[in-house]
């Protein structure tokens, strides 16, 4: 059976070369990778807001791009819904007018059904500026889904939301997917989103899809595939979760880390910490109370300058950690390879991946 979406696009942007190939069925795919890896650009190429230098995109049997070949279907005729990172709700239109935008004028009833599906019926005459962050997300989802697209693309739409709200919206998104059968491609750099939402994860690194694997393999300790090696970004450790000393702790080969109290379940797990969440502590400056429990000592192995970010490899208890620090303040720290440093992580920035995460969304 041929895939629902079969896409291979490449585009050169200055020194950056994007070369992505994605194939998926009517499922939820997650495009996961660090900032600047080309995830959002891939979405723009898929939905027709950017032109590839070359490529081939087929969706539901329709050819959307064939270059060379001269086929380029514009965004307006692709039947691909998009929820943008900033949501892009039309500020001069009410909730109802926003949802009605992609429908015919006489389809007000259908727009109202969608507004009801996302539980916004009470607010359909309000303007986006009168809504909360979570409500705006719902409206953006309803607007993108109302025309029943062949594919829904989401570009980190929940990035500005906190834990519980984020979990609720993920749950709603899965429910909408089950009800409509519309396949979803979701872009994120939060590993919890990938685990909680996806059927399949596409890892993206430096403009290329470095690996594709079913989401089960992310948390399956028996899996032969080492996620860390595939991605080459982030800090992923195996360990165990246990309660003690009035908190929930993750014990790994190199020590213990305090986790967010909201984390339930105990036993074997993996913890993922994004490099930008590992904070370098300034010497002779009191440590923030949230950072204090997780202070670790290490030695700088290497520093790589990546645009506005310094990527620092630090050896902590025989394990290598990736740390990203803004370039402008890194210079002020005056750190060199081989020097000792102190780092820490806020408990809420540690993502725990377990089998129960998948079922528990």
């Amino acid at each position, binding site marked *: 059976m041929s895939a629902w979406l079969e896409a291979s696009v490449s585009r050169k942007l200055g020194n950056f070369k994007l070369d992505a190939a994605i194939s998926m069925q009517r499922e939820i795919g997650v495009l996961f990778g660090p900032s600047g890896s080309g995830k959002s650009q891939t979405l723009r190429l898929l*939905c*027709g*807001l950017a032109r590839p230098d070359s490529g081939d995109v087929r969706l539901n049997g329709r050819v959307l791009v064939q270059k060379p070949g001269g086929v380029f279907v*514009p*965004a*307006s*005729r*692709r039947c*691909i*819904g*998009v929820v*943008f990172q*900033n949501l*892009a*709700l*039309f*500020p*001069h239109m009410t909730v109802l007018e926003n949802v009605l*935008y*992609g429908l015919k004028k006489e389809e007000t009833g259908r727009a109202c059904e969608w507004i009801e599906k996302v539980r916004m019926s009470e607010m359909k005459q309000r*303007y986006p*500026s009168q809504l909360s962050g979570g409500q705006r997300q719902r409206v953006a989802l309803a*607007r*993108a889904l109302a*025309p029943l697209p062949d594919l829904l693309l989401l570009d980190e739409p929940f990035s500005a939301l906190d834990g519980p709200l984020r979990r609720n919206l993920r749950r709603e998104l899965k429910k909408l997917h089950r009800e409509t059968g519309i396949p979803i491609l979701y872009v994120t750099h939060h590993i919890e989103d990938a685990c909680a939402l996806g059927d399949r994860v596409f890892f993206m690194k430096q403009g290329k899809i470095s690996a594709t694997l079913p989401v089960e393999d992310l948390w399956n300790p028996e899996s032969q595939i080492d996620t860390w090696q595939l991605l080459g970004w982030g800090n992923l450790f195996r360990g165990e979760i246990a309660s003690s000393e009035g908190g929930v702790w993750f014990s790994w080969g190199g020590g213990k880390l305090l986790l967010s109290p909201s984390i339930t379940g105990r036993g074997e797990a993996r913890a993922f910490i994004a490099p930008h969440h590992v904070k370098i502590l300034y010497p002779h400056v009191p440590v923030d109370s949230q950072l204090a429990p997780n202070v670790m000592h290490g030695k700088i192995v290497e520093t790589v300058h990546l645009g506005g970010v310094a990527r620092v490899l630090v050896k902590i208890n025989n394990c290598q950690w990736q740390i990203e620090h803004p370039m402008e303040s890194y210079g002020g720290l005056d750190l060199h390879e081989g020097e000792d440093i102190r780092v820490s992580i806020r408990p809420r920035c540690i993502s725990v991946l377990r089998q129960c995460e998948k079922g528990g969304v």
Partner: protein
Amino acid sequence: MNAAFLISLKVLAVDIPLLLILGTSLGWLLARRRFPGREFVHLLVLLPIALPPSVLGLYMLILLGRAPLIHDLGLLFSFPAAAMAPLLPALPIMVQAARSGFLAVDEGLEDAARTLGSGELSVFYRVTFPLARRFLLAGLALSSARALGDFGVTLMIAGNMPGRTQTLPLYIFSRVEALDLVSAHVAAVLLTFVGIASLVLVRALEGKSHERLA
């Protein structure tokens, strides 16, 4: 004064639609399209603000009076010249306002409209134009006031012929020359009122533009 008032109204009747169409199109082009020579076009559009009206008038006089084909149209010192003259100094105001308005519209909103099935024209009429509308109206109010008050360029290419090309500002000039200060005052009060009204309108639009978008 009635004749001058009527001619000024006729000039506005011609210039307001032209300012709206030309100013909006040029403003949109400068805000949204990248093309070779864009900076040059922008400078050229703004140039009338920096040049003295007599210089502008002189060049227009040469263009309308000497350029082949245009010369044959016989536009000089006629109503069409009186209607055309205020466009030059007023157009930059409209273009700048339109350009700022279109730049203030988040391109992400236009992209969202495209993914929802809108073609380029529909994106403009349903998203870009309504969101930039207050800027456009403010620009139109200011540029119309400037067009109504034009003196130098009109005098240079349309002359000061009562009943044919004499607009209100030229009427005031003639009345002052004839030491008929009362008539000059009446016309001046009228123009001052129009100027204040257009500024009040602009301020009101600026205030409202943030109400729903805040």
